[in-house]
């Protein structure tokens, strides 16, 4: 197959956009915490980029997409990313793009998934343990699940993932990314327990413009995530793009209408949250449904997630930034929605859902996809979480939590506006660690 520069251009652009989602997520989450823990929140995302990218080169890509012949996992060897580049136009079959373009696009998915989890355990997580957690979690949860869902068997179509082979439709990662992260987030919220002062102290977002910056970048990057998953610049990509936009719009409307009716006010946090809920829900469905259906799916996701974020108060787990209410619930809505709205009319590689005369077959497959990933991720994460908690310790101590995790884990504070004009009351330089010399 000859290399298509057009397809490659789009996949490269899309990859860059997806990379930006992880910082975007850091801002979205970071603005939602209290001012004393915003840096830690953002660091949980940034370190994911660091760790997962390195593992990807070593064995991650191979675990997920290596030719193993197995439907459970790719190859257990090193990623060969040093070799596959030999042929500069070596294609990621069956797509006419360089295999490294495919590998880097997929890497961005592997990076953001653990970052998504971090929202459920804000303000209280030991940074070192979190780093170790990411490394193990992507290895035993994300890489295999990505194989299940995203590996269609390569050139010879053997070794496709079991969900992909079964015909579960998940265009851009509703299962592998969102349900996966949401279920893991629930597990960790249980392992770490509630924050000091939960349901008593004000834990309101400290910087809503930062939340909106994050939401804006996420929305932008998500076009790469969803439309980029076409792995080419074609009609499927355009469909995925349009659906991403209009589902998200529908979800903003859905969330705000619920808020307006229930609370009397439509909020900016609601708009941002609705957008993310819509983006999550349309992710698996974006290339399998018509635009009008995308609006409906988005609207439902917005309205349902606006309500689902209260589940934590009912069941008593402190999912601090609503990873469950948004990503798990939104991901399930999206996966199942294909069972209703899916239609071959818009995508020959899709399938007909309930509304298009396809009966319950597709819905059944989608349910299997959603709940098997949910169950696997939840159980494995719960066990891993408990083990790390007993060994390294997963939670900082109470005093540190009250003083603020930014200070105790990172020796930083996010803001110093005191020196706005003129002097400052913010301390003095007392030493330079990087050199022997004391300050002059």
């Amino acid at each position, binding site marked *: 197959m000859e290399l298509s520069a057009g397809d490659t251009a789009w996949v490269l652009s899309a990859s860059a956009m997806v990379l930006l989602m992880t910082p975007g997520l850091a801002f979205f989450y970071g603005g939602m915490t209290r001012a004393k823990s915003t840096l830690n929140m953002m660091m949980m995302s940034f370190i994911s980029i660091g760790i997962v990218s390195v593992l990807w080169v070593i064995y991650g890509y191979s675990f997920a997409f290596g030719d193993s012949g197995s439907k459970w996992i790719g190859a257990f060897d090193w990623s060969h990313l040093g070799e596959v580049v030999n042929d500069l136009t070596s294609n990621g079959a069956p797509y006419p793009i360089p295999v490294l373009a495919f590998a880097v696009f997929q890497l961005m998915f592997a990076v953001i998934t653990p970052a998504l989890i971090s929202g459920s355990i804000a303000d209280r997580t030991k940074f070192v343990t979190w780093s170790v957690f990411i490394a193990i979690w992507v290895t035993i949860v994300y890489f295999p699940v990505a194989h299940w869902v995203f590996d269609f068997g390569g050139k010879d179509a053997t070794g496709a993932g079991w969900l992909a082979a079964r015909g579960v439709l998940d265009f851009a990662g509703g299962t592998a990314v969102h349900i996966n992260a949401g279920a893991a987030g629930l597990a960790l919220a249980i392992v770490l327990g509630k924050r000091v002062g939960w349901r008593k102290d*004000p834990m309101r*977002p400290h910087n809503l413009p930062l939340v909106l910056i994050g939401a804006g970048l996420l929305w932008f990057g998500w076009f790469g995530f969803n439309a980029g998953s076409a792995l080419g610049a074609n009609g499927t990509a355009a469909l995925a793009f349009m659906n991403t936009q209009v589902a998200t719009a529908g979800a903003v409307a859905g969330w705000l209408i619920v808020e307006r009716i229930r609370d009397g006010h439509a909020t900016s*946090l*609601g708009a941002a949250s609705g957008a993310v809920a819509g983006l999550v829900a349309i992710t698996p469905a974006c290339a399998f449904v018509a635009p009008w259906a995308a609006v409906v799916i988005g609207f439902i996701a917005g309205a349902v997630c*606006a309500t689902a974020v209260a589940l934590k108060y009912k069941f008593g787990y402190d999912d601090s930034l*609503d990873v469950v209410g948004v990503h798990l619930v939104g991901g399930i809505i999206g996966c199942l929605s294909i069972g209703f709205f899916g239609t071959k009319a818009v995508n020959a590689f899709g399938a007909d859902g309930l509304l298009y005369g396809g009966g319950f077959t597709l819905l059944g497959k989608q349910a299997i996809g959603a709940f098997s990933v949910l169950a696997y991720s939840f159980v494995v994460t719960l066990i891993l979480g408990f083990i790390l908690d007993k060994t390294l310790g997963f939670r900082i101590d109470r005093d540190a939590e009250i003083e603020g995790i930014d200070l105790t884990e990172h020796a930083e504070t996010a803001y110093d506006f005191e020196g706005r004009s003129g002097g400052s009351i913010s301390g003095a330089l007392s030493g330079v660690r990087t050199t022997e010399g004391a300050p002059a």
Partner: protein
Amino acid sequence: MKLVTAIVKPFKLEDVKVALEARGIHGMTVSEASGFGRQRGHTEVYRGAEYTVDLVPKVRIEVLIDDEDAEAVVDAIVAAAQSGRIGDGKVWVIPVDSVTRVRTGEKGSAAL
């Protein structure tokens, strides 16, 4: 010497300043404060969780003044800061032993 302290609504600060300047008082120190009292605070809602903020923003104004001017200053502030709505604030007067101007070391009235 007296120290007159006034807690007033932030948007009244400018009026108080003008009123004091009209009385020939050209120095004061201002800082931000939050008040708790009869005036109700407000409610914020984030993802359905309702927060009650019962502290309302206020401005604190401090004026050092000669004993004999204290009452007039209090009256001037009260007149300027009054909106007639709950939460207009308080003004109080405290006796001061001594005042020094940092720049010159002058003491007493000369330091104002």
